[in-house]
């Protein structure tokens, strides 16, 4: 038994040495000092694209300086690619200016619509999960790629409402959308955990449905319960708010993903407010590294006859 455990540990270390997983943080202004003073423990930084839409040349120069020391990726929330409507050229042009100036490793957006005509929803809304929205998303990804010169990674979103008008479950819709859009996945594990909790499905079954060879990046975050009385009944849902520590089920999902993906993974901890001590954030990054190591080790374990 000890020998088996030692073999497993050796295998895990060997895999970690070959597969260079990275763990980092999303950049937020209040975290700047914490990030810059701990770059030896932060492998990569994710920048919110919209923070730089109106940035001056000097500010973009500062980002390029950061990029010279640490890998940088950009992440957008405002394009609304998962829509039947075409994403506006002027929006793509503004995003392209930022991406051109920063020259990140990759850029990503969400599997969401955020507006319909002149109606701005204000955040990420899950579209009806149908063949039409799969095709609409693919058309918008093509438009974006033509302007930006690179296809975005697409992120699964958290939703508090089971998207009205849906014909497919989330796993099937995500799988078919990635295929139609010919792009890879930024898998948000707290979004998956929240949706699985709110709509009572097995997150592992979701992982079985999606093409794991398309998973490139991972988001981890936390959330909280919200309550409402609707039709006389007290209801509660898990809200992905990025204001709380990463819960254990998210780390367990990270182990599962690391065991199933063969390529390198980049894990980003998202924290938008109620910032904890820097040591707490760094501890969560270490917990993510531990989860990756455990999953990589499990992937290498020899099959056991039962």
């Amino acid at each position, binding site marked *: 038994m000890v020998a088996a455990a030692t073999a497993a540990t050796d295998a895990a270390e060997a895999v970690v040495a070959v597969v260079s997983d990275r763990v980092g943080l999303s950049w937020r202004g209040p975290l700047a000092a914490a990030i810059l003073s701990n770059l030896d423990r932060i492998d990569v930084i994710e920048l919110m694209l919209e923070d730089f839409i109106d940035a001056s040349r000097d500010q973009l120069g500062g980002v390029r300086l950061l990029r010279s020391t640490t890998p940088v990726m950009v992440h957008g929330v405002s394009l609304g690619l998962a829509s*039947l409507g075409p994403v506006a050229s002027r929006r793509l042009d503004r995003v392209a200016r930022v991406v051109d100036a920063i020259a990140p490793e990759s850029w990503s957006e969400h599997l969401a619509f955020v507006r*319909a005509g002149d*109606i701005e*929803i*204000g955040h990420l809304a899950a579209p*009806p999960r149908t063949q039409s929205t799969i095709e609409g998303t693919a058309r918008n990804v093509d438009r974006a790629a033509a302007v930006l010169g690179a296809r975005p990674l697409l992120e699964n979103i958290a939703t508090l409402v089971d998207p*009205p008008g849906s014909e497919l479950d989330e796993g099937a819709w995500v799988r078919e959308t990635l295929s139609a859009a010919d792009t890879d996945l930024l898998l948000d594990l707290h979004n998956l955990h929240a949706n699985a909790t709110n709509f009572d499905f097995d997150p592992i079954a979701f992982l079985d449905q999606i093409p794991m060879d398309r998973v490139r990046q991972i988001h981890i975050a936390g959330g909280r319960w919200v309550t409402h009385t*609707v*039709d006389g009944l007290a209801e509660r849902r898990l*809200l992905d708010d990025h204001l709380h520590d990463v819960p254990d089920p998210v780390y367990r999902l990270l182990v599962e993903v690391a065991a199933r993906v063969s390529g390198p993974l980049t894990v980003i901890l998202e924290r938008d407010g109620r910032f904890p001590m820097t040591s707490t954030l760094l501890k969560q990054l270490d917990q993510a590294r531990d989860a990756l190591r455990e999953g990589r080790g499990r992937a290498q374990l020899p099959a056991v006859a039962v």
Partner: protein
Amino acid sequence: MSTVRFERFLARLYTDAELLRRFLADPMSTAARSGLDDTERSWLRDVDRAGLVFASESFGRKRASRRQPLLRRLLSLFRRRL
């Protein structure tokens, strides 16, 4: 299947509290008055009523939080002018 009109109706439900209130009270009539056809209305038959409330409240909070920095910027500009 989905349609641009249906997507727009969802966006209105998420952003217009009065429309959502009317929809929850009488979904099919409200959808019809909003211009949805029979097929589009059928997509709303088993709609997640509680989810609509949670989502619209959450989107409203997000919109409000985005307006605050803009308001602060305008106020600070106004103060500087004074």
